[in-house]
């Protein structure tokens, strides 16, 4: 049995070596400890780094933790080196990603029908970027492929897990409760006015 202090130190070493998020279950196995305990230690570390205002922070993705830089220090990173920049996603890619994120697992024809236009090339682009993956085939006619988001998706948009996806009300609900929230800016449709 290792002390908590030793285990936390070990977690730091392993996160640093690995580069990518370290799974709680792997860490627990190596430390011969319980997953809940190890997860607790990861979160303690995460807090310490935040409290101390460190330049590196600990990010949780699903049930794994890894070092990342502190976002506000980006300016220093840019002065130091030219980090590899990923091209920002197009509007079409964001729409398809939104559909997959909220409706996964989902087939291409479902995506097409929600967008009202073919999305094949956009889907291929998202597969290439490792933001979505094929999760198998639907039981439906023709057994079409079904798609789901990846860990890379969570990383890119800073979600800990899919549970973190924000709740977005249906248009109909928005229209019925126009005072509840102000969606007009985002939707660019004036609901209040349309109620007249």
């Amino acid at each position, binding site marked *: 049995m290792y002390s908590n202090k030793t285990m936390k130190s070990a977690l730091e070493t392993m996160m640093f070596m690995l580069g990518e998020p370290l799974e709680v279950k792997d860490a627990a196995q190596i430390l011969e400890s319980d997953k809940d305990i190890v997860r607790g230690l990861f979160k303690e570390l995460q807090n310490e780094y935040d409290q101390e205002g460190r330049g590196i922070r600990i990010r949780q993705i699903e049930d794994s933790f890894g070092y990342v830089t502190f976002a506000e220090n980006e300016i220093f990173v840019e002065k130091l080196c030219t980090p590899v920049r990923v091209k920002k996603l197009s509007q079409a890619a964001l729409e398809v990603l939104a559909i997959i994120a*909220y409706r996964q697992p989902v087939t291409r024809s479902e995506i097409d029908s929600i967008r009202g236009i073919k999305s094949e090339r956009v889907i291929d682009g998202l597969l290439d970027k490792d933001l979505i993956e094929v999760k198998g085939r639907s039981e439906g006619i023709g057994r079409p492929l079904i798609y789901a988001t990846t860990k890379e998706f969570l990383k890119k948009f800073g979600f800990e897990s899919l549970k973190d996806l924000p709740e977005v009300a249906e248009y109909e609900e928005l229209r019925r409760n126009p005072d509840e929230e102000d969606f007009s800016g985002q939707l660019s449709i004036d609901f209040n006015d349309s109620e007249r």
Partner: protein
Amino acid sequence: MYKVRIDKFEGPFDLLVYLLENARMDIYDIKVAEITEQYIEYLKEMEEFNLEVSSEFIVLAAVLIRMKSYMLLPRVTDTGEVMIEEDPRAELAGRLSEYVRIKKIATILKDREEANYAIYEKPAEDMSKYLDDPDEILLASEDQMVSAFILFLTKKRKVEEVTKRYQSVRREKDSIESRISYMVKKLELKFKEGKGRIPFKELLPDDADKYDVTLSFMSLLSMIKQQTCDAEQDKNFGPITITRKETQNVQQ
């Protein structure tokens, strides 16, 4: 009226939602005639600007036109009662509503992409020295072996085809059949000379190479099988001696 938007629309719903927004029209209460006119007008403009108007845009135009004419017809029964029917706009409204929701999520994602743009991971450290003495887990499956095997067989067959063609040019005359007849003639000659035991070596052509030896040997085996002659070999690697087939007459 609406302003002309320069950037391209992501699809017919994108365009329609934009037009509704400009006309301050509710998705669930579309003034079909008005919006259809605007929609078709816009498609014409897109064509004028040489923007790609994909078939999906046209399909939605057709849907709108159909809806428009449907709504112009009075819906009354024979007795003059107004029929209560489902709003023909309901299905389209439902789909537009879902599309608007997706667009809102896309906007949220865009903001989050922006916010997370400044966060970097680092590559893994060099762990090679720890990998020198791993616990080896052998990854093996039936599929793996079968596909490797098929690959091998395919390769082998290709090589064989090439080799065969090459050899058939070089050795056109030297088939087993021709070699057998060559050897049978030679044997008969030797037997006629009164020799009962003929060393295999004497049946080889002059300047025989490895191929000739192999071919002759294969021919000899066939000859034994066909009961043309017998052969003996006293010890490993020892000389082979060919004799007359003793039971030949009995067999025939």
